[in-house]
């Protein structure tokens, strides 16, 4: 049986949206799939050496379950984002959900290939030294080459 392939595009850099690419990639790798993730725009934040800055905001996120109803005016107050992030991380830990760091490490151990979009790296003036060393750099053609041969291809 030929090795299955999955190609993902990760475009979001918030805590909630960081999970799907790392969950799918680590699982597919565990199933023996060959996986590549193309990180572009805000998804580049997921390649930083430290993932501590990855946050979640209740603002403009009305579907986010809150322990108590919170008016938008309150959500806007300074410190609300870091509080929401802290609470979400605490909840995840208590439910046995892996940390982003853990899932990313699993992906790297399993040889999931991380490709950073060179155009957006330049656009946001990121330094490659800000990212983990396993990252490769390329453009849309690099992604299309792998995606064209993939069995599953998702834009996240």
């Amino acid at each position, binding site marked *: 049986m030929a090795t299955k392939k999955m190609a993902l595009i990760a475009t979001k850099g918030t805590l909630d949206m960081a999970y799907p690419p790392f*969950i799918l990639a*680590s*699982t597919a790798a*565990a*199933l*023996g799939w060959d996986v590549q993730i193309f990180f572009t725009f805000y998804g580049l934040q997921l390649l930083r050496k430290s993932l501590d800055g990855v946050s979640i905001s209740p603002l403009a996120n009305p579907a986010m379950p809150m322990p108590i109803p919170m008016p938008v005016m309150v959500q806007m107050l300074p410190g609300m984002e870091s509080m929401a992030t802290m609470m979400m991380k605490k909840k995840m830990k208590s*439910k*046995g*959900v*892996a940390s982003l760091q853990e*899932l990313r490490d*699993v992906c790297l151990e399993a040889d999931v290939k991380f490709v950073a979009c060179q155009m957006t790296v330049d656009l946001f003036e990121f330094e490659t030294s800000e990212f983990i060393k396993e990252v490769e750099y390329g453009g849309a053609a690099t992604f299309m080459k792998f995606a064209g041969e993939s069995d599953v291809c998702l834009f996240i």
Partner: protein
Amino acid sequence: MNFNKEFDASGLACPLPIVKTKKALADMTSGQVLRVISTDPGSVCDMAAFAEQTGNALLEQASENSKFVFYLKKA
């Protein structure tokens, strides 16, 4: 059922039971049996899907006191 190794995934959520089961199988030899314990209800479907896609046979599965037990035979 006899088994060669046990992995307790109790308390872990998706995708850790699967990802760590894969790791637990890594140092086993073909034909050996791994017993996995999980508390994640999603792992019932996930473990069957894992077994089917990796060729590691799911010999038996059962639930005991809100825990799920799986016996996987390494391919």
